[in-house]
């Protein structure tokens, strides 16, 4: 029994995403970039010396530039984290930019220290003598010019990466939305189609006409009666103002006309008994649902094996649910588990119910212990259509 609305599953919480995160960068590529940049600067340095002071061993510029670039690379994660923690926005730039300037000074100094230490270590390792770094204060200031530029250029790169990522996500969300929209449209089309096919079935119509044409020879009054019942059904099924849901009163009018005609066709072989408290007649039911269930019971009956068809329809209300029970004395369904999927009539009914009530309905089949099938349909009572009984 499921008359409660489906709970909407919340997304897994997790921490909120920052505008840029370490994982947004392709780190091998970043490493490659600093390597290449270091090598290019080495070449530039080397040729600078050729132009200015004459040849010089290649390893001096190589050591200078590679230590410079790799120590810079080592600090890149800190730059990313800094911008990640303190994004610069239109609302906070007047204090965020100074903070970042401060960070760039600290990181720059760290970078300079790392450069000096690594160069001293390498000079010592290869016996190149002592690495002289000249006037320490000016050295830091000289490096900071470049570090300042690097810091803000890197900010531009991060903005570009974040922009690209967001654009791709929007695109993905848009295509997901499009998929959902087309799925909804398909379902709507299908519901319309089902509504159409739920009209009077031609097999019923022509067999009834044949019955009337036969009765005509024997009992003109009765034939007249039958034609009137058939007209009632036709009129109702041709009524285009009818939606997928109709008041029970109307559905029963339709069903009663159908039952009269079925009795005419199968005579004493059918016995259909419908009981509905008059207080429920204004509640809405899916149009043709009851009719389909009764038709099904008659259709699957093995007349001479099960005796005359006995169909009993009981309608009741409990709280916010309207229950329709259709019981027959037919063969039941041997393989109940697979039945709802297989039988076209039952599958159609279930699909229509899904289209109308989402998951807020019950559609159960059970074999009755005394033989026959018990179909139980429970649907929510729509508040606007159902004044609560006083």
């Amino acid at each position: 029994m499921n008359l409660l609305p489906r709970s909407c599953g919340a997304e897994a919480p997790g921490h909120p995403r920052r505008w840029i995160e370490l994982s947004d960068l392709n780190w091998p590529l970043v490493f490659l970039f600093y390597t290449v940049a270091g090598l290019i600067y080495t070449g530039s340095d080397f040729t600078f010396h050729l132009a200015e002071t004459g040849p010089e061993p290649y390893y001096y510029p190589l050591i200078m530039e590679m230590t410079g670039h790799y120590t810079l690379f080592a600090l890149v994660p800190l730059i990313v984290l800094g911008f990640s923690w303190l994004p610069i926005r239109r609302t906070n730039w007047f204090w965020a930019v100074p903070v970042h300037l401060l960070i760039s000074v600290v990181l720059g100094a760290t970078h300079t220290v790392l450069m000096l230490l690594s160069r001293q270590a390498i000079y010592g390792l290869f016996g190149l003598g002592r690495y002289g770094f000249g006037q320490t204060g000016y050295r830091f200031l000289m490096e900071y010019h470049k570090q300042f530029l690097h810091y803000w250029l890197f900010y531009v790169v991060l903005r570009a990466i974040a922009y690209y990522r967001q654009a791709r996500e929007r695109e993905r969300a848009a295509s997901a939305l499009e998929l959902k929209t087309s799925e909804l449209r398909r379902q709507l089309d299908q519901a319309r189609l089902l509504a159409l096919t739920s009209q009077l079935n031609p097999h019923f119509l022509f067999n009834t006409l044949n019955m009337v044409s036969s009765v005509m020879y024997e009992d003109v009054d009765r034939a007249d009666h039958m034609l009137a019942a058939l007209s009632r059904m036709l009129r109702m099924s041709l009524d285009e103002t009818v939606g997928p849901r109709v008041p029970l009163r109307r559905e029963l009018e339709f069903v009663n006309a159908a039952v009269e005609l079925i009795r005419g066709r199968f005579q004493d072989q059918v016995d259909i008994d419908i009981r509905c408290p008059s207080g429920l007649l204004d509640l809405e039911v899916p149009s043709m649902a009851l009719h389909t269930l009764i038709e099904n019971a008659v259709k699957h009956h093995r007349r001479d094996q099960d005796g005359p068809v006995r169909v009993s329809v009981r309608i009741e209300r409990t709280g916010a649910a309207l229950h329709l029970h259709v019981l027959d004395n037919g063969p039941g369904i041997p393989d109940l588990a697979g039945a709802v999927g297989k039988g076209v009539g039952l599958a159609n009914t279930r699909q229509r119910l899904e289209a109308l009530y989402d998951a807020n309905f019950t559609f159960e089949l059970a074999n009755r212990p005394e033989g026959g099938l018990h179909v139980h349909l429970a649907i929510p009572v729509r508040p606007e259509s159902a004044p609560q009984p006083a």
Partner: protein
Amino acid sequence: MKVRAFIADDEPPARSKIRRFLGSRDDLELAGEAGDGVTAIEGILELRPDLLFLDIQMPRGDGFDVLREVYARHKPAVIFTTAYDQYAMRAFEVEALDYLLKPFTAERFHAAVDRALRSLGAGGAADAKMARLLQELAANPVRPPRILVRENDRMFFLKAGEIEWAEAEEKYVLLHTRERHHLVRESLSALEGRLSRAGFVRIHRSHLLNLEALQELVTLGRGDCIAVLRSGTRLNVGRNYKDGLLQAMSR
């Protein structure tokens, strides 16, 4: 001598209308009537009518089921009657078989009967048409096939889906359903021909399996294989049939 007619239709008024029209002719007499498929088969085989009015939609075996069971043993002239069955109507059109659309007029009825009586004299051609119709129905079934079971004093149709597996027993086949088994006089190959489109696969010289009933395939040593059914039954899979089974399972 009068031509003897049989009416198979599940609706009493429909039968009474044909009865009335028959009564107005002095070259026809009513041999019997039936309200469902199985009763029709019994009646036709017993009474051997010359002319059959056959409704398509009936409980316990439809018109085509009746025809398939009856036609091998008795070949009456057949006039199909149907209220609305597009598939059947198309099949009749293709074979130029006569059929009456309900409700039909007396004129249309008599014209069909006259044609049928003429064909009774001619023989041959109508049989060939009917054979082709049956072939066509077997090749393109409108619904899962049903197997007619005769048991002591009763007959009934078993839906293909109810059969878990079938076992060859000399000239017979034993159909195993969940609860019991039924003996039918038919060869396993003939049965395979009728059921292969309904998901049945030959897994052994003498076993035919409904894939729906298959739980799992257990491989033993040396490539031997056992099919375990949902009901717990274990069946040997013949070596020559294993590949076919695997193919069918992966489909």
